[in-house]
């Protein structure tokens, strides 16, 4: 990768290449959009129109819903000019996204927000903790960290195995934890030879039992020669719990935050969240914040 500062975000039209279910509750959308695929760096995000554009012009057919939806990057394939995003159907916008089919064109803006540059990560080991649709962005981040010679370890939490965004496979951990050597690991990370463990609230063999903080605690009790820090991404209560634990243990924690957005690019102050230094925009100052700075409400 070049050392240049990534070019400004792009406002452009992307083409849907594929759309597949991802686990039982989510979809994986593949978009062709070379500008974004080449310049995006995790955990940046992009925004996407809910309606496909009509054949003849730039405007969609329907004006409702109006706003674009922010999504993170799951896999980036800069060489192919493509990327994948995984999303969960929660409301009308994501319901519409689920109706997109190959060939449809959508309006996109991205990459947006700050990224985590491996060279700014001081610790050698990074615990990537998250759940739900927070896991896919951690995938692209984990790859980036690994490519830069860091040790990413993924810690996932879910209610049941079925609500995980990805299938699990048995894996022998490189770095055993809590006395366990062989656990169920998330398949995409395993394929990239990245350790991952999963905590389920409904107990099952090969998984940790309880909230995500259960395995996270175990990890934080280990020794890390090159130091350790956390990146948290997932449902806000989970991120908050992770941040809380990090605070107790005095481990640095980056929280990837969500917020309702207008412009996505810093112009409207819509996406403000409360921090110790006042309101901060998730789309510009975020989505990554030092968890110590977040004022949880």
């Amino acid at each position, binding site marked *: 990768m070049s050392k240049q500062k990534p070019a400004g*975000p*792009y*406002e452009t039209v992307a083409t849907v290449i594929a759309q597949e279910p991802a686990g039982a509750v989510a979809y994986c959308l593949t978009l062709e959009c070379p500008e974004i695929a080449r310049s995006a760096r995790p955990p940046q995000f992009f925004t996407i129109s809910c309606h496909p554009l009509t054949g003849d012009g730039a405007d969609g057919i329907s004006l409702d819903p109006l706003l*674009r939806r922010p999504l993170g990057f799951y896999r980036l394939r800069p060489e192919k000019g493509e990327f994948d995003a995984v999303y969960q159907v929660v409301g009308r916008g994501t319901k519409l996204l689920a109706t997109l089919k190959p060939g449809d064109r959508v309006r996109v803006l991205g990459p947006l927000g700050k990224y985590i540059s491996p060279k700014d990560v001081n610790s050698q080991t990074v615990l990537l903790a998250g759940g739900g649709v927070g896991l896919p962005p951690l995938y692209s981040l984990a790859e980036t960290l690994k490519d830069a010679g860091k040790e990413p370890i993924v810690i996932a939490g879910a209610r049941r195995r079925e609500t995980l965004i990805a299938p699990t496979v048995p894996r022998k951990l490189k770095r055993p934890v809590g006395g366990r050597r062989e656990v169920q690991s998330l398949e995409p990370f395993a394929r990239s030879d990245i350790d991952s463990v999963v905590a389920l609230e409904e107990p099952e063999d090969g998984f940790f039992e309880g909230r995500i903080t259960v395995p996270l605690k175990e990890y934080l009790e280990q020794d890390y020669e090159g130091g350790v820090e956390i990146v948290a991404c997932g449902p806000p209560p989970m991120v908050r719990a992770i941040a809380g634990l990090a605070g107790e243990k005095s481990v640095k924690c980056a929280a990837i935050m969500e917020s*309702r957005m207008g412009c996505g690019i810093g112009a409207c102050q819509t996406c403000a969240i409360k921090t110790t230094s*006042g*309101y901060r925009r998730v789309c510009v100052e975020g989505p990554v914040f030092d968890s110590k700075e977040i004022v949880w409400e």
Partner: protein
Amino acid sequence: MNQERGNKTAEPSLEIGLLGMKMRTPIIMASGTFGYAFEIARVAEFDFSQIGAVVLKSVTLEPRQGNPPPRVAETPSGMLNSIGLQNPGVDYVIRRYLGMLKNFDTNFIAGIAGDAIREYVECAGKLAAHGDIRAIEVNMSCPNVKDGRRFASDSGAAAELIGAVKKGCRKPVIAKLAPGTGDIQEIARACIDAGADALSVSNTYVGMVIDTHRRRPLLGNDAGGLSGPAIRPLAVHNVHLVYQAAARRDVPVIGCGGIMTGDDAAQMMIAGASAVQVGTAVFTNVHIAADIAAGLGRYLIAQKEKEVSAITGTLQLNRA
């Protein structure tokens, strides 16, 4: 030059003159959705050439932290916002942001807001002194601050405010009206009498979305301002009403509310607008001004008009 262009091409001209500004198109980016211009100018290949002017986000005398989040609630074909005028204050804006304006090839109008008339006046004076600011738009109607609608709902207060700003500043003053707060024609006349050089019609409509699960308003500030295509028919009607009051006095009207396409812009202009403002639509496409300009151009060709200004106020009522 002009003649040469006139000969070279049959393309209609989107150029207009407004308040002494030469604008390449009648499309103005509305206050609050285009920040201080540099944020959106970061977008790769961003092009100001189809933007006639930008109204910068409303500035207040002192910094404001704005309202608690969430600050946006989506509604059918529209959105509520409750930003609450978050801004770093006029001095900071001048010191840190206005210097960048010279990099962007368009006209800039400063938006101002406040609680007391004194604040508005002081703010306007400071901004008007800046060489890259061509006019001052007075936000008389922010629905997101306490008592925010007072100036827009009482013609006496409106006149007092506009008169004071006008006296304290040597650049043209635009009064930005608010809808749904009484007789908009009366307020318009009061602003004109007080010296307004143009009228923007209009700001957002107050609305509320309730999160039924929690039985609380979705917005942190409870209510917010409705914008986007949902309000377009209301805005077109208000522009037409204000035009009837203002045309006689030769005061230009700037139409605003729900514009997404060239046809929407044409509706506003036919209803009486000399120029249009585009806000929420930027959230769907940052290059929207270029699309609207292209649509307006096609419309003028179809109508065999040479100049966009020729359509302003050409509405023929069916019941006239």
